[in-house]
């Protein structure tokens, strides 16, 4: 059996020991900062903070870098596509229409997008690899979320590997009967390919869903408003301290950002401009 790349990794760390709600709050704060801040230097700081948290949580450098491997094509697209989109003739920028500056601005924008994306992905990754889904669901129910909704999340995660397996089976069966994925060619063939994939996948997913629903019904799921939880998820003093400091810092940065008081640590475009056009 193949171990999924993005599931919980057991390790002894302070971050692992935090309440799932504290970790969810961390994820939220980091995500807000990554979306809000657009300065490359500040984004780099957020990214380094997230990555360092992953290392301190003992997830391992190799595992953290490896987890990003399947997303490399997307990162390359993010990094380079703005560079070309901002070339003269494709987009008009008012501040400077010289081709060099347009290119530089495109590169800067590409780096910003890549850093932002990496922050979001790594934050989610650190959260998922340090938090048992079950604990997160239990913690949410403690906050008043009905457990039926919480378990929907567990079910979705539980079915992802099965869905992946089904998709592989369908793909293999298509290949074995001569359907050449590399030669889809025209639109009709592309539509057919979607049809040939979606239909069997949908039917097998429905079948899986039916079996799972029967299984849950047979175990009295949803019979009562409450249920027993074998494991306790507690909120410790560390959780309170961690969450308070985190919230304080996030609110301060948000305030500074909206008030225009967030210092610019490094202006990429301006530095390049001065390098190429010292007189301007």
């Amino acid at each position, binding site marked *: 059996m193949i171990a999924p790349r993005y599931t919980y990794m057991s390790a002894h760390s302070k971050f692992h020991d935090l309440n799932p709600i504290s970790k969810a709050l961390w994820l939220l704060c980091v995500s807000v900062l990554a979306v809000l801040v657009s300065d490359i230097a500040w984004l780099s700081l957020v990214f380094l903070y997230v990555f360092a948290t992953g290392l301190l949580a003992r997830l391992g450098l190799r595992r953290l870098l490896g987890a990003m491997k399947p997303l490399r094509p997307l990162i390359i697209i993010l990094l380079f596509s703005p560079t070309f989109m901002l070339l003269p003739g494709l987009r008009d920028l008012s501040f400077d229409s010289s081709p060099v500056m347009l290119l530089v601005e495109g590169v800067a924008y590409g780096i910003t997008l890549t850093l932002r994306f990496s922050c979001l992905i790594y934050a989610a990754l650190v959260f998922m690899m340090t938090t048992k889904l079950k604990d997160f669901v239990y913690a949410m129910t403690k906050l008043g979320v009905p457990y039926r909704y919480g378990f929907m999340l567990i079910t979705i995660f539980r079915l992802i590997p099965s869905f992946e397996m089904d998709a592989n089976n369908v793909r293999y069966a298509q290949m074995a009967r001569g359907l050449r994925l590399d030669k889809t060619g025209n639109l009709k063939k592309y539509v057919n390919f979607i049809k040939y994939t979606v239909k069997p996948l949908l039917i097998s997913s429905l079948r899986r869903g039916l079996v799972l629903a*029967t299984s849950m019904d047979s175990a009295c799921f949803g019979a009562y408003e409450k249920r027993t939880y074998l494991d306790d998820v507690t909120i410790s003093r560390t959780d309170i301290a961690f969450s308070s400091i985190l919230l304080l810092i996030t609110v301060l940065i948000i305030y500074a950002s909206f008030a225009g008081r967030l210092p610019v640590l490094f202006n990429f475009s301006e530095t390049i401009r001065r390098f190429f056009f010292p007189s301007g």
Partner: protein
Amino acid sequence: MCIKTENLWYKYPRSENWVLRDINLTVSPGEFVCIAGPSGCGKSTLLYCLNGVIPHALGGVMEGKVTVDSLNTKQYDIHELSMTVGLVQQDPENQFRTLTVRDEIAFGPENLLIPKHEIMERIAWSLKMVNAEHLVDREMRELSGGEKQRVALAAALSMKPKVLILDEPTSNIDPKGATELAWNLRDIRSKTDLTIIVVEHRLDLFLWMSERFVVMNEGKILYDGPPRSVLHHGHDLLPRIGVRPPQIFELFSHLCGCDNAKCNCPSHHPLSPEEGVEALRQQMPLNFRCVCDSAHQGRARKGDIVVQVDGLTYEYPGGFRALNGIDLKVRRGEFVGIVGNNGSGKTTFLLHLVGILKPQGGKVVVFDMDIRNTPISTIARRVGMMFQYPSQQLFEDSVREEILFAPKNFGMDSNAISERFKEVLRVSDLEGLEDRYPQSLSVGQMKRLNLASILIYDPDLIILDEPFFGQDYGHAKKVMDLLANLNREEGKTVLITSHHVVELAEYAKRLLLFEGGRIIEDGSTRHVMNSMMEREEKQFFCTPVCRLAHLLSGHTAPDAPTTVKDMLSVLMEEKSG
């Protein structure tokens, strides 16, 4: 009475056909009942009527009355009934609700608001009942198919039901897992007063421990009584409707002559190898030697090499090493069976033969094509592969289009295949269904359609991955007879993986045993099965007849028969000689 169905009729929503027709079944507390019948006869539907899934979850039209432990299933909802009836379904993969063994077993009691300390006790007790205490801290994804079914059984037990129902629990697990599950049920039965109902095709596993045997066909109960009596009275009809008696019973029926004429024997035929030894010693006091049949000794193979594999290795992303140095030669016209536990590398190996997976180490040459450098479609034109799950390989909107799917992809001339189309429909028993929607067919019909979709382009090598999955004996036999005929008449090379060793012994001339990504046994089917008898942990891969022969000879039969036919000839030889 623990269970009582009275004049039970049922049809699914938006269906005109009654799936259950006037079912009257009474089961006493503590009884062990085995239910069999062809695919689609209503066995699973009957089970769903017992635990309230019908009518509460699936809807449909239900007439008559079902009472379980004095509860009328129409008046009590599934939750209330689930405290009385525990369910284990056939697919070990889909029925799990959580991610770890401990959570899975605790899931039901947690929903019932059972106190924590009692849930802990129930986890320990139910795991002990299925001999799986060591699995308590494991994640579900780490378990084998057999282990998953044992955990499913433990999860059902943790609800402390009075009735346990199991719907084809061994259909998707390897022989070792299936046998261990059967032993678990035997132990549970001896230690508790649970009523157990098992729906199963593999009667070798469960019938010997059953008190009742119920045979269903077309929604009705055909036979209901003690297993030996039902098998005796139905010996003529059962195989025709797709129910295969245990192999040992078949052997004794032949020995007794039950199959030839109206037999007046007391129908005490044994059901397991252990029972068979005693019976045989009483009936035929002989000095069993299992004369070595040279015809079955590793005969030199002839013909061109069609598959040559050297040092094949493959590792999945994530580090699971599925193949660990496979060397193999298969010649034209061979019929090769492949056995091995779940996860031993069988399917990964077969995917290399069509070029779907490319070797990471070593070399695979199929029909002189190095699969590393040959497009899949070129290989697939000569190698037809049928996968395990029938519905996942049906893409078109009609049977006709489905069969023509591959020829269209291969760019074959439609006139050239029109004649073959009729022939393929005929041999696949799909005539008259040309315009049916493939996904609406029965599992057996889907499997035959999968095969027809391969046969249409006349590949030289036919590969089947678990062809018996979800099929009754009748349907499986049709597929195997068809393949045997193609192998014999047209010299097609056939490779089959299966957990059904009785059928493999009858059809495959050569057998490979996979373990840990390696082939650890390779030879004639009879020779390999006898080799496996020498190792206790591999005996699950041997047929009951082979085990009987070894028990008779005190494990000194190096080339014991594996099929009823061979065993009969050996016994006759012993008797006359």
